[in-house]
């Protein structure tokens, strides 16, 4: 009886958050979900979900999942290394504040301008490319990889790495130097410290951050659209095509259905992440 009353009281603490999210997140999501079940005439239909199996939508799905997974993992590893380099410095220094602030800015930098920044650097008219070319090295001898998914992955890392730094740094800050000393006093070397002490403590945050990077890359639109403007290779571009097409391929229902598909894929990714968390915590015990 007492426990039951306490449980009900406990829920009250989450009401503000759930209420806010209920109004401003669930309602829009429901609107999108309902839209996925409406055809062009406004009546109930499942035809939009058939559209998910169109060859270009399937290709875009595969492309986007691969691109997101690759940039998430590489971004997480490189970002973690950079975060470690920052965390091991003076916590109150100007350098750390500058680097963290720069990471904040760059984590949200994207779109046409980011694409241009890379084009101006290593694009066919970029100075790094021209410099290399003058010295005998032609990046694009075998094709313009900068304009396909490989180039896009490289450009994505530009915001994935700073994002990783920002969300993983607090976890690294939590590492106490005493743990290192303790590990060493027990005769452990660097490998042992990371494998048995710091690693298991950091892994949940690391995996969570990787999942965030995956979702971040998964829904990114403007940068992909600037670099690969033909063929809608990424799911978000497929959605945009069905919303904004001015040549008659305007299919808002299908756009909503693709959005639902994207949510489903991230649900799967989240479930895999949960399983991985649980597994890894058991392995590392």
């Amino acid at each position: 009886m007492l426990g039951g009353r306490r449980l009900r009281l406990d829920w009250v603490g989450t009401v503000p958050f759930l209420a806010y999210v209920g109004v401003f997140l669930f309602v829009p999501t429901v609107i999108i979900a309902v839209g996925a079940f409406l055809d062009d005439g406004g009546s109930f239909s499942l035809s939009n979900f058939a559209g998910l199996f169109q060859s270009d939508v399937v290709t875009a799905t595969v492309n986007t999942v691969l691109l997101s997974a690759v940039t998430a993992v590489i971004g997480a590893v490189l970002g973690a290394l950079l975060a470690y380099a920052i965390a091991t410095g003076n916590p109150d220094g100007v350098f750390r504040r500058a680097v963290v602030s720069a990471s904040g800015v760059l984590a949200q930098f994207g779109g046409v301008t980011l694409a241009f920044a890379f084009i101006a650097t290593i694009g066919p008219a970029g100075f790094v490319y021209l410099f290399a070319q003058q010295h005998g090295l032609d990046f694009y001898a075998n094709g313009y990889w900068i304009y396909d998914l490989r180039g896009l992955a490289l450009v994505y890392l530009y915001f994935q790495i700073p994002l990783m730094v920002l969300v993983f740094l607090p976890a690294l800050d939590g590492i106490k130097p005493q743990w290192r000393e303790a590990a060493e006093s027990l005769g452990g070397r660097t490998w042992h410290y990371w494998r048995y002490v710091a690693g298991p403590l950091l892994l949940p945050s690391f995996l969570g951050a990787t999942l965030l990077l995956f979702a971040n890359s998964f829904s990114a639109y403007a940068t992909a659209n600037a670099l690969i403007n033909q063929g809608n290779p990424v799911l978000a571009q497929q959605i945009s095509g069905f919303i904004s097409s001015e040549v008659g391929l305007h299919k808002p229902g299908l756009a909503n259905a693709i959005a639902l598909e994207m949510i489903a894929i991230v649900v799967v990714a989240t479930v895999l992440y949960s399983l991985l968390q649980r597994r890894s915590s058991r392995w590392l015990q």
Partner: protein
Amino acid sequence: MAAVSGGFQRARRRKLQAFRAVVFILAGLFFLVPILAMLEFSTRAGNTFTSPRTGQFWRQIFDYPDLVAAITASLELAAITSAVMLVLLVPTMVWVRLRLPGLSRIVEFICLLPLTIPAIVLVVGFFPMYLWMGNNFSDNILTLAFAYVILVLPYCYRAIDAGLGAIDVKTLTEAARSLGASWFTVMWRVIVPNVSAAILNATLLSVALVLGEYTIANNLLYNNLQVEIAMLGRANAGVSIAVAVASLLFAFLLLVGLAFVGRKRPRQQEVLVKTYARDLAGKTV
């Protein structure tokens, strides 16, 4: 033993410093060179690297009157969004950790959902509520804050979660509560100072996101900073890149300022917490 471990410590520190130097140099090249390329392009009088330099495109930024109103609106939005996000998220996350651990996966997924749906289709879900809000409540651009709080949830949740995971929330809370602290005191004077780095990073991410947000504002027909930048950028090529670099610099300086403000207080807060606990218990902590 001391001599051996001393030498070992020095060798490890040297390796660490070398590691940090390499990481920072590589990161600096990767992140700064594209920005320098944009800066170079925005100061070209002609069309090649060897052409003379000009400041005309940068000067055009200051001649654009609508930019000031847009900057003010975006700054206000950044402040409101960050404040609401912190008030909504930090207590909820602490509460879930303490009392409702079964809910943590759900809260985690809710906080990932906004990032799963691309902004171009999420705004479709926002249309009805913003139409209603505009006709019945307020038409002001600051109502975008409602949507922005949702958009920053994924990033801020991850940063704060990393911070909370690094401290022992349960013990800290129990200690403070047993000393007679109210829940407000626990949050404000015990938890928050200990996750100040995470809160700062979450705020930086939130401010950077609001300053860089384009799609939702644009499709809801509000002219925030990025929309005005896009408009200004259509005047000519040079000013489009100049204003993009200016926007990055502006955001960077703002975030550095925030980072300096954010860091000052925790030292005082830690002392306060210790003093408070000591006074209550009548003994040194």
